[in-house]
């Protein structure tokens, strides 16, 4: 088990470093960064001077080495706009993003798993069919549009919730619902099908043959088996959740990493973009890592050799 954790942890590091590498080169290939600092009609020698100053005249590979050397120490340079430490700015936005993502994830799981289980249990009833239809529609609704619709109803029409901004629990309600909606639909549907899948298994028949009542069969036996694929899916979908968080943050002006990243992309503030990429890749990789460990934990075939 420990070997497995160590091995997976190495993978996390490798993946994050490679992700940084890719974005670094992508940015360098896309254009000369010095032109961003200077007016477009700046004289040539001023550009050269600037390049000299920022080290952009060195060979690309040296720049890369330099960048990585500093990056692994958490130094991504200063924001081109505010001249503050790029990583520091990104880190300061993390709590807001976490708040949003975690509350959305919790809500999604709290709603979706019981709903999916119930749907599987009452398979082919009206309840199940309506549930399935809703999840199919739910998966087709883009989160940013749902956000707009929610703003229209709750902020513009009913005027009971704020349309944007951050800070209080009230502000969290609409963004959380927006972000959770897609995951609710997807997790419910997946829980249902994972459950139905497990219910077809031989070992469920064995439990039935032991006289286990259906309710206990589902809640105790089938659920634990279906949790294995559910955990995998939730881990895979955290990427979608993080991606959705960026868009949701923009829609609701939520002061998180996603909105920061968007603004920096607009302003071509690359140190912040790189720091943001680093943080997001790191979070995503860590979350996947945790999911893997969790997966191994619920699956004794991996846990116990």
């Amino acid at each position, binding site marked *: 088990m420990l070997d497995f954790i160590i091995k997976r942890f190495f993978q996390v590091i490798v993946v994050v470093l490679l*992700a940084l590498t890719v974005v670094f080169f992508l940015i360098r290939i896309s254009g000369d960064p010095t032109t961003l600092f200077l007016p477009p009609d700046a004289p040539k020698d001023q550009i050269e001077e600037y390049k000299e100053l920022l080290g952009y005249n060195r060979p690309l590979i040296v720049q890369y080495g330099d960048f990585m050397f500093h990056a692994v120490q958490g130094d991504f340079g200063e924001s081109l706009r505010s001249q503050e430490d790029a990583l520091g700015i990104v880190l300061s936005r993390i709590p807001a993003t976490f708040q949003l993502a975690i509350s959305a994830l919790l809500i999604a799981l709290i709603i979706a798993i019981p709903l999916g289980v119930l749907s599987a249990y009452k398979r082919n009833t009206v309840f199940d069919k309506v549930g399935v239809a809703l999840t199919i529609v739910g998966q087709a609704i*883009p989160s940013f*549009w749902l956000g707009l619709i929610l703003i229209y109803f709750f902020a*513009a029409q009913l005027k009971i919730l704020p349309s944007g901004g951050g800070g209080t629990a009230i502000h969290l309600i609409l963004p959380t619902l927006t972000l959770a909606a897609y995951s609710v639909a997807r997790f419910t*549907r997946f829980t249902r099908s994972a459950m139905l899948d497990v219910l077809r298994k031989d070992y469920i028949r064995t439990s039935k043959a032991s006289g286990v009542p259906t309710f206990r069969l589902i809640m105790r036996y089938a659920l634990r088996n279906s949790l294995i694929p559910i955990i995998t899916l939730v881990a895979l979908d955290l*990427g*979608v959740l993080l991606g959705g968080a960026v868009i949701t943050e923009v829609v609701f002006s939520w002061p998180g990493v996603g909105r920061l990243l968007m603004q920096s992309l*607009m302003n071509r503030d690359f140190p912040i973009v790189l720091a943001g990429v680093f943080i997001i890749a790191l979070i995503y990789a860590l979350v996947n890592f945790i999911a893997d460990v969790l997966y191994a934990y619920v699956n004794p075939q991996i846990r116990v050799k």
Partner: protein
Amino acid sequence: MSSSLPQNEQALENRVKPKRKSAIATFFSNLSRSWTGLIGFIIIMTLIVISLIGQWITPFDPYFAEFSKKLLPPMTEGHLLGTDQLGRDIFSRIILGARVSVIIGLATALIAGLIGTIIGIIAGFFRGWIDIILMRIVDVTLSFPFILLVLVINAIIGAGLRNIIISLAVGGWVIFARVIRSEVLALREKEFITACIATGVSRFEILIKHIVPNLFTPIIILASLQIGTYIIAEASISFLGFGVAPPTPAWGNMLNEGKDYIFSSWWLITFPGLAIVITALGVNLFGDWLRDTLDPELKGE
């Protein structure tokens, strides 16, 4: 030498021999049995037709701005779905916007699918170091949320229809590569492939004649399920101000422009959004149906 099979059985064989249908007839008879699949198919067909003939059926010029008629509510002055902040007809713009979604969905699926499939086949069939390198690239790409990856790439390489397709394809091929690779790996272990080796078929022929034909089903299923993702991703990115740039009408950028008027003019955000939802719904329904029909084992994820 006598046949070990008697006449009686031959007769039985003939009695139960199924009637053969053409592939197209089978497709439609299967489709007619599933109303969800049918709805999906009708939505997709309608979209494709609209995107082909859209420019001739719009009631108004979608680009024509008339400030005196800005922000007209639906059903006024012949504007079925109202007008936007510049006085352009929303219905006409939605019709023309269908083209962007259809092109992006199909083109990305085609490009990402093709690249991903080729890479998946190479990695899965040849294994070794090439497999390791390719799969590391896939891992790294997947270590980043899809929509963010596309967003960052698109922000760096710039807006425009071509660039959004490139960005989506760069983010999207990995899914194909990973799925096709594992399909190839699974196929390689199949006994009928071993049987080919035992027969003396060359490696190249095994790949082309036996492995590739068995990949069509997963590729088609995957592509049909991914198209919805691409369409929503494009809309999201255009909504954020990248992707397809105005004045080209795309549902995403219509929502982007309309969001500032949310407190006064609800129709600006409602209808383009509905168009996205219906499209994604149609694609997903059809994709689900296709998966359930072609590959019963994959049923339900």
